[in-house]
């Protein structure tokens, strides 16, 4: 019996004309770069915007592997940990290394480790492959906390970010952290978008949809999968380094546990598999939902709500939402936004300028 594929084909046509699309991106970017500084609240920077950007980047990392190349991974957090600890070691052991180089180095180390854990994908297909990423998820944090060398001698494996600076510019303030995070996230997202638009991205999509057919088209599925593992872990590694340095400041290997991996998986399910914008929508959702929930709870019940109860309500809600999205909106929030946009633009008569998607 024919089954509907896990993914619908990713639309290659765009919903906006390129010029309009570029303008929109530029507007969003300008707003992201300027608006928070106008508002200038430290809470907004450190508790909302920085984690939102980092989680979006992590979502992008996982989406490359799962949404585009079709390889399910439950070990995202482990690769984030590798990136964080590798960057930390580069900064501590090579004090002259500038921050961007250390970040790049951390990403590359994580990419290599990801490549290693991706090797079984050459032989194991489908579901059994989660053994490999789960092995990474349990083995890597264990390794990092077991040997204090990784944390420069800290017995419990805790690392603390050194003061962040870029040449003469001091980045050690909530606004500085935000600026640094934004710059990295924009740069990586732009690079990833170009990669995904080109032959590499198309090869990944072909492998995802049916690797035997991809092979018949002259794509080497094994090589494509391995490269996806490497790129995905590279991005996750950089997200992990940012998580440790610009968001938390102090982090231990246990902070990168299975729950974090699930969180990132939920971001891409809710946001949209195989979509770049989806990562940002999903991350915004994941960051804002707990805030909204606790506000709502204290508004309804009044006073202090038991945090354990709140956490369980959140779990219930997330679980139900995952199922809801998988059932009714498999392409996630990004599809919802697209549809809203289409409805509105056909309403004001702009529809005829766009390519129809599907």
């Amino acid at each position, binding site marked *: *019996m024919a089954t509907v594929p896990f993914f619908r084909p990713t639309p290659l046509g765009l919903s906006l004309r390129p010029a309009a699309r570029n303008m929109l991106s530029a507007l969003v970017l300008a707003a992201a770069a300027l608006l928070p500084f106008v508002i200038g609240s430290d809470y907004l920077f450190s508790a909302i915007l920085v984690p939102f950007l980092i989680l979006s980047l992590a979502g992008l990392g996982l989406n490359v592997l799962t949404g585009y190349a079709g390889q*399910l991974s439950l070990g995202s957090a482990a690769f984030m940990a590798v990136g964080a600890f590798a960057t930390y070691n580069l900064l501590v052991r090579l004090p002259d290394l500038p921050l961007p180089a250390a970040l790049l180095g951390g990403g590359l180390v994580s990419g290599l480790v990801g490549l290693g854990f991706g090797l079984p994908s050459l032989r194991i297909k489908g579901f059994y492959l989660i053994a490999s990423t*789960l092995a990474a998820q349990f083995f890597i944090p264990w390794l990092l906390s077991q040997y204090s060398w990784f944390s420069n001698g800290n017995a419990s494996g805790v690392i603390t970010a050194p003061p962040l600076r870029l040449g003469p510019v001091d980045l050690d303030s909530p606004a500085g952290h935000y600026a640094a995070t934004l710059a990295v996230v924009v740069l990586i997202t732009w690079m990833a978008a170009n990669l995904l638009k080109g032959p590499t991205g198309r090869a990944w999509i072909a492998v995802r949809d049916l690797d035997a057919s991809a092979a018949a088209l002259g794509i080497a599925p094994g090589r494509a999968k391995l490269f996806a593992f490497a790129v995905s872990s590279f991005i996750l590694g950089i997200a992990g380094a940012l998580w440790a340095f610009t968001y938390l400041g102090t982090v231990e290997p246990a902070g990168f546990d299975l729950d974090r991996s699930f969180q990132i998986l939920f971001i891409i399910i809710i946001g949209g598999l195989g979509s770049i914008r989806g990562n940002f929508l999903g991350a915004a959702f994941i960051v804002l939902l707990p805030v909204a929930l606790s506000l709502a709870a204290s508004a309804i019940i009044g006073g202090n709500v038991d945090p354990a109860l709140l956490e*369980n309500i959140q779990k*219930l809600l997330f679980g*139900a939402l995952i199922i809801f999205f998988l*059932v009714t909106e498999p392409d996630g929030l990004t599809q919802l936004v697209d549809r809203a946009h289409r409805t509105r633009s056909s309403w004001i008569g702009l529809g005829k300028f766009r390519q129809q998607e599907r």
Partner: protein
Amino acid sequence: MTFFLEVLIGGALAGVMYSLVAIGFVLIYRASGVFNFAQGTMILFAALTFANLVEMGAPMVLAFAVTLALLVVSAILTERLVLRPLANRSVITLFLATLGLSYVFEGVSQIAWGTQVHALDIGLTDDPIALGGLNLSRFDLAATAIAGVLVAALAVLTGRTGLGLSLRAVAADPLAALSIGIRQERVTVIAWSLAGFVALVAGLLWGARSGVQFSLALIVLKALPVLIIGGFTSVGGVIVAGILVGAGEKLAEIFLGPIIGSGIENWFAYVLALLFLLIRPTGLFGQRDFVRI
């Protein structure tokens, strides 16, 4: 040598408990082709409900019956609200849905019953018993016996009865099964209810040993590699794999731990599973699927 044997057998017996959890997976996988990540939180839900009912003064039999009834209701709801709308979707989509289901079970059980640890006494003690010169846990032996009976019963049920035949028919080819009049929804509900029953038994055994608490849900992470090594479709394979993993990780922790560091238990099973997969990509006794284009 005696110590080595004690560790080996103790680990193997603990491994049978992993198998018990993994059998719940196999039941559901065979009937609906779904890899049910929620099996772990089903165990948590079952054990918490049972423990709280007993603490409220219900006799054990009644508590067992009520918990089982709740599990059957949740099986019906799962079929209606999750599986039916997702019919014909890919294996990975279904897996992700059970991940959501797992969060729902966890949230519901802890909202309803709180997050405290409950002691559970089901009349089994953990005293060591001397057997042929070896000190073995009485509890482990009893648990192994219960698991053995359960496995035999399930093997008969799925292998020798009409119900078992329809379970396998639905898994093999849902469309053909429908066309010969098998009621797929009902078969699915029965499989999930059976898995709920297995979860209840596993929850009682694990809960009696280590207290009824959230960590019960984490057994799923131990059962997963067992399942991967054994193959998703084979009850026998899962038993063998459970014993292998249980014995292997205890031996590794005790004899390898002092050399490379403690806490090996957390990842040993996965590395073992990975090694197995590299040699046999469909597990010990799993069936190889063919890909059609």
